[in-house]
């Protein structure tokens, strides 16, 4: 795995500069059933295609941001700070 990500604050960096936060999933808003809770905690969609996901600029500005990445090609289509944008309801 080796590709580039554009940190919304710092610009283009190697992927090894960043921490991966996983695909963005919605945290249940209401009390979930045990099964729903288990799915939220332990299951991932693991999409083969474009996925919205969390990234953390660990060796840089230490900001969390959102990327849209094609998991098949590692092509990163978009990165943006979460502020002001509906990011799908929650961290995973």
């Amino acid at each position, binding site marked *: *795995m*080796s*590709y*580039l990500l554009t940190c919304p604050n710092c610009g*283009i960096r*190697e992927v090894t500069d960043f*921490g991966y*936060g996983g695909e963005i999933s919605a*945290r*249940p808003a209401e*009390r*979930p059933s*045990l099964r729903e*809770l288990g799915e*939220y*905690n*332990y299951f991932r969609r693991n999409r083969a295609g474009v996925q919205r996901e*969390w990234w*953390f600029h*660990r060796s840089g500005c*230490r*900001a*969390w*941001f959102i990327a849209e990445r094609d998991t098949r090609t*590692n092509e990163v289509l978009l990165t943006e*700070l*979460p*502020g002001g944008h509906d*990011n799908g309801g*929650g*961290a995973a």
Partner: protein
Amino acid sequence: MSRLPEQPGERINRQTVVRFTFDGKPVEAFEGDTIGSALYAAGQRTFSRSFKYHRRRGLMCCAGQCPNCIVAVDGAPGVRACVEPVRDGMQVEHLNAKPGLELDVMRATDLVGTRFTPPGFYYKTFIRPRRLWPVYEKVLRHAAGLGVLRKEQAEREWRTEYRRRHADVLVIGGGSAGVAAAKAAATEGEDVVLVDEGPLAIEPIPGVEILTRASALGYFDGMVPVWRGDTLHQIRARRHVFATGAIEQPLVFAGNDLPGVMLSGGALRLAQLYAVSPGTRAVVATTNDRGLEAAAKLKAAGVQIVAVADLRETRRAAAQRLSEQGIEVLGGHTILAAKGSKLVDGAVLGPVGVKGASTERAFECDLVVVSGGFAPATSLLLQAGARTRYDAARGCFVLDELPPGVSAVGDVAGVDESGAEADTVAVPPPVAGAGHGKCFACLCEDVTAKDIKLSIDEGYDSIELSKRYTTVTMGPCQGRMCQLASIRLMAKETGQDLGAVGTTTARPPWVSVPMGVLAGRPIEPAKRSAIHGRHRDLGANVKWAGDWRRAYDYGDPEAEALAVHRAAGLIDVSTLGKLLVRGPEAGEFLDRLYPNRFSDLRPGRIRYGVISSDAGRIVDDGTIGRIDEDTYYVTTTSSGAGAVEEWFSWWLADWKMDVRLTDLTQGIAAVNLAGPKAREILGQLADLDCSPEGFKYLDAKQARVAGVPCLILRIGFVGEVGYEIHFAAAYGEHVWDAIMVAGQTHGIKPFGLEPQRILRLQKMHILVGQDTDSESTPFAAAMPWIVKLDKEQDFIGKWALEHYAEQEPSTRLVGFTLADGYVPTEGAVVVDAAGEPAGQVTSARFSPVLDRVIGMAWVPSPLARDGAQVTISDEGQTLRAHVQTRPFYDPDGEVLRS
């Protein structure tokens, strides 16, 4: 010395002599020589012993492609002598031969042991009796491999670097096609990097960064690591141009590995670049015009050409020219065998496809020059996603499809820019002259044509399986010399055509590379607190604790612990994570992150908190003090500081609350002053009412200590009256010194991490990660009081904790005592009545103040009650421990609160 007279274009400088040693013997060379050319000129013919059979191997390609000349230089193995320039004083040694290169005892494997060492022999010959495998393994490990790594060799001290380079275009290969591509791209204004393996300087090109003696190791999603000297250049480009050329192929015949059998390019390089005569009498076997041209050039350099076998029936113009010089050219012939023991002393030529000794002709010679055609060097392209197809006319695999952004130029693309008459190439037989002896398909791993046939007979009948079973193409040459040969053999034995057999992909690294280059400069940040110098002065026993260098003790941990109970102790806790959480919504933010409440914490007060994940598991713990209405000071464990900051900022990014997060970990130093005399000592230094009424347990106060503005947290991690004093790191030594001086008359002692661990264990204060793991919940870890399920708002972990609140955990964390003074190993197993593992010991120490052994352990829930007896199995010993659920020391906290 077999130096030729001056050759046009020779690369050596005859005015400057370079001296080095080979196996301890002095060798003289000229500046510009390679180790290989210098040794060859000095008469050396055997350069290495082969991997399995320990056969003699000599120079073959003289281009760093084949494995035959790998030596150790100054202790570092894996250096190819034929391309490594000579340096004054270098110490060159052979590999893989004992006691010496000329007499190698392991040669027995070739002479008598061949039938014991077929492909996969380590699964066959050495399997019975099974109990002897450990012995076999030792023998095999000793026999295997090329070269040894020594503990004290210079390479271990080698400092390497990596560099990241972003460019528009990366050109791999600095031959004429690569240089032209680089020039063209630079002319368009593109930022170009050109890398070339070879030792030759390339004339500077404006706009092009040129790296010579630089090897591209692989292709990873558009990033190409390039090794040059002590730097790994990680080059990432938008566009990649591969000008990797074509690799001259050997022929598979009996004795094709003997010293004196050379590729035509190798023999020419020796003669033309280094003015070293490759031999005196040569037999040439070729499938193409390049071999014929080599014959002519070698003759011009003074080598007598005894005979030439041209596989092609049609007489070529180049063959005609040789005939006119009186050289016999045998059309439709190939080489069947090279003869000789130490060195080639003869060759047998014969017509292709005709069996029988009557047609064979033997010649005396000391050099066999072969050319089996040229295979495009597509390995890196295949890694980049290119596809190849078999070209029957050229007898090799050629590029078919290229992925976007990837192009190929020059020989690798099959483009001949020499302008010469179009060559016709005959496809050589997969193997010739098998009756004469061993025919090697793979020189690196000593795989013969017969071995490949055997592997197919055993069912490894695809090229991918055969590769893994025989290890053909997996040696240092990475398939350069053997891939095509093995595919041809596979096709012949399975009756398939070559296209159907297909190719394997040579995995990175394409070039042998020292591990140190890949590791780069080790990133081992050693963090030291602002007070570290004082610990050193005090003779502290300093150890790693995560990234930190910490004082474990100052010589006597038990005495240090007792000093905290009897007088006062001072410990540096600067390593704690420290986060400032500020803003109108700070309280609510913490309420959402912790299972307990912080919005109702009064300014100036402190509360303990355990962070839980949404799965209800303990993530970290620490204290949270409220400074004022909008400001909280959060401490975390030393090892969890970074992770907690990430965790907080992640949820903040998601919730977008009006909160600001500042990580103060590095900028703030902290010490914990604890013990019955701590109050008095602090009172001497602080402009503060330190009375029990004025500064209560769990108060947070801001005051000056020794003139330095501090935040003082009255907490009790070690179980005595204690003050955790936080202040700007720049004042670290000043504050430490002031406290030590003020405490001197009270008997203050510094204490380290180890006594702190004894003290906290006496109080059953958990260490996250030591006493808990990723499965531990606050309920099972005996902290149900920390979870406030009646909180109105949602918090991280709420739903899971609601579930766990109703469930009896299988094990619980409890304290235990042991009567007989033995301290069990941390990690010792708690066993149930049936003797099955049912839990484990997480902490255990001898407590000097209690004069007994105490610990914490996960035990089956029914046993988690005071007085229950549990059995601990520790390295064969069975111990009886008694459960205790309340702190061992000061269980009611009277000392702490006093």
